[in-house]
């Protein structure tokens, strides 16, 4: 199809689809009238059952923890897939790993940027760690924390060079950390099986009172592993793309 034809066909089709979709949406109870029961039952049970006050984390890591296993492995698989697709191929040479390479089209980082980035790295790490460790209490969790921790390494890149970034996160090590994160989550789940409990059951003591950082058993532990996996996955993906941009020179056409 030519672009014009496509536009016409799509215009007609999307009008139909939109009408159809709106017809379905009009059957919903109005906005603000969530009918339950799923969410309300969880709100009722969660604090009592898990000692977590962050109910979303309780759902993510406990009631629907199995979804999160799948989700972590989606990210894990995507990182592996990115590594496969962007691997250094025959005929491609790695350019000498100096950032100031001749055809580098990014201007060298200014001193001010380096300074700011360095200043920010510490606080960012702290925030990432805090987010990862407070899943059970506050609006936070391993996922957000992991991304923030990965951002800290990107700041290291801004402050220094790719070489430093690479030294901080050698691929094999990051791979291993990522696998530890994803595998650790699945393994915590499996550990329930010899105890005669269902997969992913919360078998750790729940702690003294709801809302404490040390409360709610496996939720905190799972959040930690999710943080590892997510952080490592983002570092891997960013690293692969950085390597493509800065180091790889194309040999074949």
């Amino acid at each position, binding site marked *: *199809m030519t672009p014009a034809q496509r536009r016409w066909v799509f215009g007609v089709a999307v009008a139909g*689809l939109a009408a159809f979709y709106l017809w*379905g949406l009009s*059957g919903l109870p109005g906005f603000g009238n969530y009918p339950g029961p*799923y969410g309300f039952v969880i709100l009722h049970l969660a604090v009592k059952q898990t000692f977590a006050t962050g109910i979303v984390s309780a759902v993510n890591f406990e009631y629907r923890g199995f979804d999160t296993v799948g989700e972590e492995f*989606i990210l894990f698989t995507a990182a*592996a897939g990115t590594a*496969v697709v962007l691997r250094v191929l025959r005929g491609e040479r790695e350019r000498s790993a100096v950032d100031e390479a001749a055809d580098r089209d990014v201007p060298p980082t200014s001193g001010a940027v380096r300074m700011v980035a360095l200043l920010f790295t510490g606080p960012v790490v702290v925030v990432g760690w805090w987010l990862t460790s407070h899943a059970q209490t506050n609006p936070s969790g391993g996922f957000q924390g992991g991304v923030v921790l990965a951002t800290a390494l990107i700041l290291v890149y801004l402050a220094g060079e790719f070489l430093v970034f690479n030294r901080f996160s050698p691929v094999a090590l990051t791979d291993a950390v990522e696998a530890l994160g994803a595998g650790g989550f699945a393994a915590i789940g499996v550990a329930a099986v010899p105890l005669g409990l269902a997969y992913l059951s919360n078998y750790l003591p729940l702690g003294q009172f709801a809302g404490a950082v040390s409360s709610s058993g496996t939720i905190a532990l799972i959040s930690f592993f999710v943080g590892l996996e997510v952080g490592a996955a983002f570092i891997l993906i960013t690293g692969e793309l950085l390597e493509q941009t800065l180091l790889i020179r194309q040999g*074949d056409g």
Partner: protein
Amino acid sequence: MDQLLALALAVPLLAAAAITAIGPLLGDRRRLLDGVAIAVAAATTVMLVVIMVRTAGGDQVYWFAGFRPARGVAIGIDFEAGSLSAGLAVLAALLVTAAMTFSWRYFERVATHYHTLMLTFLAGMTGFCLTGDIFDLFVWFELMGVSAYALTAYRPEERGPIQGALNFAITNSVGAYLSLSGIGLIYGRTGALNMAQIGVYIDRHPPDGLVAVAFLLIVSGLLIKSAIVPFHFWLADAHAVAPTPVCVLFSGVMVELGLYGIARVYWSMFGQALGHRAAISHIFVTLGVLTAVVGALFCFRERHIKRLLAFSTISHAGIFLTGIGLLTPLGLAGTAVYVIGHGLVKAALFLCTGVVLHRLGSVNETWLHGRGRHLRVTGVVFTLAGLGLADLPPFVTFVGKGYVDDSAWAHGLPWVMGLFLVCAVLTGGAVLRVAGGVFYGLGDAPSEDAEMAKMASEETSETESGKERTPLTMIVPSAVLVACAIALGFITRLGPLVQAAAIRFQDQAGYNATVLAGAHIAHPVAPAAAESTGITLSDVLAGAGSAAGALVLAFLALYWRRLPLLRRGYEPGAGLTAPIQRFQSGVVNDYVTWIVLGLACVGGVLALVVR
């Protein structure tokens, strides 16, 4: 509580993580990794077989983290293993094992990520088969998808794989998000994610727009995955370029999983609430027949062996959708048996194609003509599998096809039977034409157009070609798969067993009771009198007829130019697809346009029905 249900999923996932962590430390000793990965896949197969055997006495339910439903409200996620879902998972695991065994000597060098991706793919398929939660279904659907996209682009140094993977990933992602929209709609109405619970809740209202729209949206992602016309365009692009062992999984089971998802969603949630059974059946049968015919026509004119097999898969997906869409136990049972048979023989065909690529370095039928004479074992296996694809008794494919035909007949759709016979002759004939030409050098090399030659000559770096011998690990899996397809055909109890399983699968009230109330439903009601369980003489004749027809067609195609009386210069199959050829443009923008148009059309029909 059967812990195997959780382990069947956790073991491949843990193994995938472990292989990624340990792989780089092993250096050159990658055989160890190969061995571990194959062992894990085989162990998963065994676990799933055990689960399947146990489901013969009744469906198994597993609540993750031990959250059982209280007063009909599910707060956790469940696995619900029936015989059909567990059986499909077994097929997936078996094919993964076969494909990984085949890969042992196939790739020049395998990065550790290959095993990781195969194992996450396996876990995604297993989870998709067994889950009883609609959002969980989406999660495993995505895991399956992401693994599959990455595996398609496993050879990024070539153009084809990158383009195929892009088309595959974009179309299927659009489908997944449409499905998720449907899930959001149904959640807004019912406040539930457990499929059984949703089924109970939406049945309380008369069917309305929300139910119809949610149904179509959820199904749309699955229709795209199962390559139903007009959502099928991505499939040939992706299948032709993915590494051959991966194609085994794509054609043998991934497409079928999409169809399984449609059946699961229909019979656990929407069947009762949506009503209008006749109209829904008509919609599915229409789409299915259209797909079967389009796939068969494209298949016959193709010269690129992997694309040819891919189009044959599209044709069969159409037949499967029709079998499901008849909404009868016999139709569903027939589809289930047919899916198993098709998966086995199609996998064998792809593996043999892999051997050809390994030894001769091409998948171009024209170029290969007569050059495969010395690959005797491969030739025999390929030919047998081709006959199986054409439903020759006693291959198990003929049992399944027979049931679907019988059900269509009982449904008052005899023309569907005839059309499917034509489709089977066309796809079987195409495959047997390849067998006769490549492995036995019969007749003349078929002509080709430049476009196809270019496409077929692309397959180069996948394997180190020109090997002197075919390693045993490459030929044994395909021979075993074909042997399985024949052996299953002799198990006379298979038919009644699968029918009982299909009746249980379609028993929505029973499914609800099993999941939500922990009921144990062991014995399905007796099959309806109108639909016999036996294999009739007409089934045998139809199967033998389609195989004979396929053989005749293959010979006609090969000896076409030597037939004195016929018009010269006309190439068989050349004009068949000209009008629709240009739709297969390879441009993903077009594909998404067709998806939207297809949805709008089916949605319009559905709106007229449900209104």
